[in-house]
């Protein structure tokens, strides 16, 4: 078991994610948040266990279901919610939205929305670590469905050939949108795909932050020892639909209830109480403070300004172009209108 402070901090992170997600659902219902919104509820232990096992300068790239990872990595919830609200104060200045949270200063290189496509980036980051001789590792986080995409295969093979320090972390929540895993993955124990790359693969209880923490630590150690990439499979479940638009026709209430019994938050809470690590009151205080933080983030986001229209063309190129950057010219030609 970890020490009390750590145990409580994990609890705090998990409930903060939960409350944050619930605020997001609210913000979406009030049309403060647009586009696609994928909640992390149910999977909190995966992010919290895995990410806390990394060093601060280990690199993370993740998928569109990225709020939990950003919070576990310590990104400021105000800047996250503001991003979801599309505000200038958002971590990506309102340009990215829910699926594209990032903060490179925290080695959190962003959420990506094309399935399987960010895995090669983690390979490239590990290439950099190997290149400069650093002990950092990189971690790519993605879903079970993503393991059927070509990008998964090319990334694992390449990382293994170069013996790169990459942790490939599958969040196996048993569904890829509406498809149950056996309907799109030829095998269900996805960590066994490690065999095809001669690397270590391992299944982990994704509802238990401690199991996640320990497995990730071991994986990171392997990486740091120069033994090449590791494939971790967290067995988990999402309690909500794929995105807000999902009517969830494809699974039964019984199945969802079964998994809700395994709620990572209530189970962790029970464990801390049972093992005498924390009192109900201590945990309730943490919970309350997390809820306040989530609520505050929504207020902050709501009151934050939209990006000015005059900034539309900012950030297009890092090295500015002299001729032919048509954006501003095109913007100048826009008619005046209110939406």
């Amino acid at each position, binding site marked *: 078991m970890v020490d009390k402070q750590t145990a409580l901090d994990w609890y705090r992170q998990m409930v903060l994610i939960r409350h944050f997600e619930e605020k997001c659902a609210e913000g979406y219902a009030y049309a403060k948040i*647009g*586009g*696609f919104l994928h909640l992390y509820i149910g999977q909190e232990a995966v992010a919290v266990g895995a990410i806390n096992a990394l060093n601060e300068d280990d690199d993370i790239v993740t998928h569109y279901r990225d709020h939990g990872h950003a919070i576990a990595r310590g990104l400021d919830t105000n800047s996250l919610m503001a991003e979801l609200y*599309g*505000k200038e104060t958002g971590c*990506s200045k*309102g*340009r*990215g*939205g829910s*699926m*594209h949270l990032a903060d490179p200063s925290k080695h959190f290189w962003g959420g*990506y*929305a*094309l*399935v*399987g*496509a960010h895995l090669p980036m983690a390979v490239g980051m590990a290439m950099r670590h190997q290149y400069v001789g650093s002990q950092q590792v990189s971690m790519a986080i993605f879903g079970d*469905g*993503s393991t*059927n*995409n*070509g*990008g998964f295969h090319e990334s694992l093979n390449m990382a293994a050939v170069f013996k790169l320090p990459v942790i490939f972390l599958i969040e196996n929540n048993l569904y*890829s*949108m*509406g*498809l149950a895993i056996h*309907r*799109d*993955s030829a095998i269900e124990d996805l960590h066994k795909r490690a065999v095809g790359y001669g690397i270590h693969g391992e299944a982990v209880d994704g509802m238990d932050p401690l199991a996640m923490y320990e497995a990730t630590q071991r994986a990171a150690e392997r990486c740091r020892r120069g033994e090449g990439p590791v494939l971790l499979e967290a067995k988990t479940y999402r309690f909500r639909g794929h995105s807000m*638009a999902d009517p969830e*026709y*494809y699974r039964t209430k019984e199945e969802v209830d079964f998994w809700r019994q395994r709620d990572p938050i209530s189970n962790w809470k029970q464990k801390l109480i049972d093992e005498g690590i924390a009192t109900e009151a201590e945990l309730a205080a943490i919970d309350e403070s997390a809820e306040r933080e989530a609520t505050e983030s929504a207020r902050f986001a709501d009151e934050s300004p*939209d*990006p000015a*229209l005059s*900034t*539309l*063309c900012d950030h*297009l190129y890092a090295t500015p172009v002299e001729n032919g950057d*048509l*954006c501003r010219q*095109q*913007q100048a*030609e*826009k*008619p005046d*209108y209110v*939406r």
Partner: protein
Amino acid sequence: MPVITYREALRQALREEMLRDENVFILGEDIAYYGGSYGVTKGFVEEFGEKRIKDTPISETAIIGAATGAAMTGLRPVAEIMSFNFILQAMDQIVNHSAKIHYMFGGQMQVPMVIRTPAGWSQLSATHSQTLEPLFAYIPGLKVVMPSTPYDAKGLLKAAIRDNDPVLFIEHALIYATKGEVPEEEYIIPIGKSVVRRPGKDVTIVSFSRMALESVAAAEELAKEGIDCEIIDLRSLRPLDMGPVLESIKKTNRVVVAEEGWKSHGIGAEISARIMEEGFDDLDAPVKRVAGIEIPDPYNKHLEYQAFPHKADIIKAVREVLK
């Protein structure tokens, strides 16, 4: 005549073709029990069974490649790519394979397949909001259609399914719920025929997909000021039927091309270049392009709204070419 939505028109086309020809089947991500992410194939698996309504893994390369192989050997697959943007993962399959096989093997094989996919945007961010049709319109061997009305959607989808070449059929998420008249009798709209959507004499607006609808709205508003727009809806981007455009210009001598994609190297560039080559002497003013601002789509809704072109942009452009 019944009035139905664009979505319903697509559903009718698919269903009728599946009933007509048992070799027609659909494959794609979450098209069966989920009904497709825009609901186009909802209920189909219940009617046609899993054999003909195939949910696939998230494997765009394999989806298109499998459709190609099935088409070569006698089936008529309709592959759904969940969002136009995901098609980039299957680009090699489409450009180097589906589109090349007939020619490259000297006509020995045919690839009668359709790829249906929705373009569109609305706070979906940069990687889920692109209008990528110019990338495909460039490719010989491929046919590319992009209908704007329920009537065209149904007639062109049926034509696409019966066509013996690979057809990229691009829908638009923002117009699935728009409505229009669709006859009960069967009809087919040939691929590669533009249509005069609205006759007029003062200026020609060339457009397609959602922007064709915006053009109609713009024309109505301009009509109030006495400006009479003729609207040509291209419907097919490859082959491109310039006939009605060139005819129209003879009369109006002024042209606006309206599209949703980025301006540079967009469809409007080709239209403008063709008018340059084949209608130069008919022009009283240079062809003007209305198009998207050249940036990745920003998530914020105000920035996004400004980045895309709308009715107001067309109105402004029409006024300018008439100056």
